């Protein structure tokens, strides 16, 4: 046994004992128990921390109010009531815009090649296709930003889970 005033007893320092008690180690086991039975200060501290941890552990389980319980049970039994971000289609605006852009460029390239190789009589239908593509491209350019804004403004807001 070592001098009490130095804060040491056996192989444990009082500080270490109190730290281990605060971490939740049981006071009645092993070297903690041996120290505590000989050290009045640590015995009192063990009682105080024990009371504190005992109170913290109280109410570990509380019944939610009935109305809340019923509401959550209903939600869980009816998942369609809650919009799941995972259930959204894989098709996303960014991917859609990328694919549409790539397809559009591929078509323009093919048309340019065809134009270069075509005779005068064949250029009229090619011009018609170019105009058609121009209008399709124009409508997509107008639609995709609107789709994106709608997506950002409300449909998925708050549906992501921070885990």
């Amino acid at each position: 046994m070592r001098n009490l005033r130095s804060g040491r007893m056996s192989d444990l320092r009082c500080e270490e004992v109190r730290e281990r008690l605060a971490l939740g180690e049981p006071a009645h086991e092993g070297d903690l128990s041996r120290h505590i039975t000989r050290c009045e200060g640590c015995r009192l501290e063990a009682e105080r921390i024990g009371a504190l941890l005992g109170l913290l552990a109280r109410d570990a389980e509380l019944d939610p109010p009935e109305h809340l319980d019923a509401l959550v049970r209903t939600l869980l039994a009816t998942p369609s009531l809650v919009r799941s971000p995972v259930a959204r289609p894989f098709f996303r605006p960014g991917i859609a815009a990328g694919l549409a852009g790539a397809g559009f460029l591929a078509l323009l390239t093919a048309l340019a090649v065809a134009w270069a190789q075509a005779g005068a009589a064949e250029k009229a239908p090619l011009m018609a296709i170019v105009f058609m593509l121009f209008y399709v491209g124009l409508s997509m350019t107008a639609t995709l930003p609107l789709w994106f804004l709608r997506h950002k403004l409300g449909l998925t807001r708050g549906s992501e889970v921070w885990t």
Partner: protein
Amino acid sequence: MTDPDLDLARLARSGDRKALAQLYERYRGRLFGYLVRLAGDRQIAEDVFQEVWIKVLQAIDRFEPAAGSFRTWLFRIASNASVDRMRRDAVRSGPALDARVDRTGERRIDGVPSDLPGPERVGEGRAFARDLSRALERLPEAQRTAVLLRHQQGLSYAELAALLHIPEGTAKTTVHRGVKVLREELAEWSDE
């Protein structure tokens, strides 16, 4: 031996609503008890409780059993949702040293029912519980969360570390600091 939670979570992940209902049954009391203590306000706890289960419902198919237990996952969602809510409330109500305590020092809603055993000590026990609730509210979020998860919900330090994304040693230090502050704040009770 397999973890029944994991079996249920796997079933729930594949769309089994009964399995999800069973998980709810297993955790509803513990989760609500945790949230009441963490928020220090029963109304907030009720709001967050509902929010947590909606998030569980939305995200259960992304739950990864290999990344940790269902309990860890659930309490992480709950902790984050609760902290988010308290921060939102703090922003709305403006700067406050103690958002849940009014000028007279009384809590707006004292939602933590607790006392020490014995009818003769009920009043004393309630007062101690009230002071404990106040002391908990004054703890930094990380310490409050860690102390409650460890000492109220009985999570291991390994689980705590996984939940908070911190090393196990840091989890222990956080809990130790939190308990030490509580111990000091409640010193007048133990000195009687």
